[in-house]
């Protein structure tokens, strides 16, 4: 019983952290249709900006906000210079965002060096809830993930800007004929997705050692999350996909090695892709 409970809590935490890491990607892919292969690089940038700010003596919570804003700005510049000209050629944007990854990774290496960096955890303790010791920081990050998902859902469903964006997804031409500023909405979505990736990078930083390739670990997993969950299913899809990918990996890792678990998840994701290419949540 105790094991089941602890595995359950573990899986829930992993799911939410993974959902946080994948969310920026899900936003950009789901709303403006750009497969952002630079997503991993944006996570890395967020982590490094956080590390840098903390080294300057800025408190952790300001540091992650700064990281989110900085990565959002980088995303905005990249969108303005390159991506906005290619929204009607999705495959080219995929290659271009890969170029972004190449450049960003090298800049990180040049500016911050290649050695491992550590961000001290702001909550380096565990909360004892009687039967299980909750790692405080992971719980905090999971809470942020929940708030972020709910907040975005609220903006998306209830506010005017959310309505514009939904109109834009449904029918881009019609929306622009109705006088909505589509290019500004695209820019906003891309910037927001980048900022979320930066925030996620900053929040993940204390859980791992940072190196210039840290984002790559999450890049492919995030994609599987989005693909398995279903594109455009921001809330449910991201959660379901994360639960599926993160949960399966946790449970399999109990019985075998980490690598075997990852390989198995990869195959399961491919099989899902084979039989439900539109994702688990999207109706046929």
């Amino acid at each position, binding site marked *: 019983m105790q094991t089941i409970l602890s595995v359950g809590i573990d899986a829930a935490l992993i799911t939410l952290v993974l959902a946080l890491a994948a969310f920026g990607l899900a936003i950009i892919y789901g709303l403006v249709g750009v497969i952002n292969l630079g997503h991993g690089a944006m996570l890395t940038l967020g982590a490094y900006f956080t590390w840098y700010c903390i080294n300057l003596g800025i408190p952790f919570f300001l540091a992650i906000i700064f990281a989110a804003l900085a990565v959002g700005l980088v995303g905005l510049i990249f969108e303005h210079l390159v991506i906005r000209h290619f929204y009607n050629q999705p495959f080219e944007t995929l*290659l271009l965002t890969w170029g972004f990854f190449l450049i960003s990774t090298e800049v990180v290496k*040049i500016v911050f060096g290649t050695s491992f960096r550590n961000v001290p955890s702001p909550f380096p303790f565990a909360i004892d809830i009687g039967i299980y010791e909750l790692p405080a920081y992971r719980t905090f990050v999971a809470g942020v993930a929940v708030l972020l998902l709910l907040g975005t859902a609220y903006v998306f469903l209830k506010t005017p800007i959310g309505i514009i964006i939904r109109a834009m997804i449904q029918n881009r031409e019609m929306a622009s004929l109705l006088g909505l500023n589509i290019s500004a909405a695209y820019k906003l979505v891309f910037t927001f997705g980048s900022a979320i990736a930066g925030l996620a990078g900053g929040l993940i930083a204390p859980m791992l050692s940072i190196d210039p390739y840290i984002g790559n670990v999450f890049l*492919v997993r995030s994609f599987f999350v989005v693909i398995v969950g279903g594109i455009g299913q921001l809330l449910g899809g991201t959660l379901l996909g994360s639960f599926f990918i993160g949960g399966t990996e946790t449970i399999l890792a109990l019985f075998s090695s980490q690598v075997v678990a990852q390989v198995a998840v990869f195959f399961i994701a491919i099989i899902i892709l084979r039989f439900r290419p539109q994702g688990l949540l999207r109706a046929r």
Partner: protein
Amino acid sequence: MTFTLRNEPRQPSIFAQVVRGELCVAVVVFALLGLIPLFISGYVIYVLPQYFLFGMLAMSLGLLWGSAGIVSFGQAAFFAIGGYAMGVIMQAGLGEGAGYVGIISGIAASGLVALIAGYFLFSAGVKADYFVLVTLALSIIVEQMAVSQSEVTGGWNGMFVDRMSLWLGPIGTISLYDDAAIYYFILPTLAVVYFALSALKRSRFGKILVGVRENEDRMSALGYNVAFYKTAVFTISGALAGFAGALYATHSNFVSPSLAGVLFSTEVVVWVAIGGRLSLFGALAGGVLVAALSNFLSSISPQYWQLALGFIFILVIVFFKGGLAGAFTNISERTAYRSLQESGNG
């Protein structure tokens, strides 16, 4: 993705001229490369075959990208599978013919993986961008397996692979331990692969692939089994990458997990994008030249060179979709067209 069809019926002779032009250039280049060991020796002769094999790897992607419009970020995975297969066979102590067995198992193993992955994805009608992601994941998986299965692969330390020799049955055995000897084995192999692939591109199969690239729905409406053709070309491409990997392993005497890694995988995409995605020779030249340049400039300033490569990659995609080869083809097409017009007027 829309590319203009090069073989529009309006001007077939120009297309033929360009293709013939490319083949002529290739013949001259291969002949010149064949002369190099007569004048130079040492490191250049050791390292050139490595670049040739990178060029072969680039062609495996060039075939896929240029004719079928499919991009794979997993070519390095097949390269590494071929290399490890070669290594395992060479260690098994099969005697003189081991090199052949190694090459064949390298081709078979990587071709099989490509066949399975390709069948699964293409028969489901998976989009080109998903395909990129799955192949990217494939290269990560192969890298991790190479690291974790250290009893077989040597883990991070890599694996020693003996130089193969050419066993000619009763006639004898040609040792390839000499750098010039293996140079003269790999260069003709590269030439054969190049001409075979250009024949394949010009064949009916190649034309069907171009049709699939241009308009998949129309091709399936015409009764072509699109999934079959895509799977077939991906299998050929994977097998070719495995072949290059097997030769690379035995040439450099060493395989390591980074051969399968994401970075190397995407380097291949950069080579082909810069060389020219629509031209086989462009891909080959991109692989050889960019790899050689990378190696040279990395010794001077690794990070700034990689950074520059990233910028070049973006610039090529934004401004010169055809890459270097596309730029040349444009010029030669224009001059050919002009001369046609002039002869028509005169």
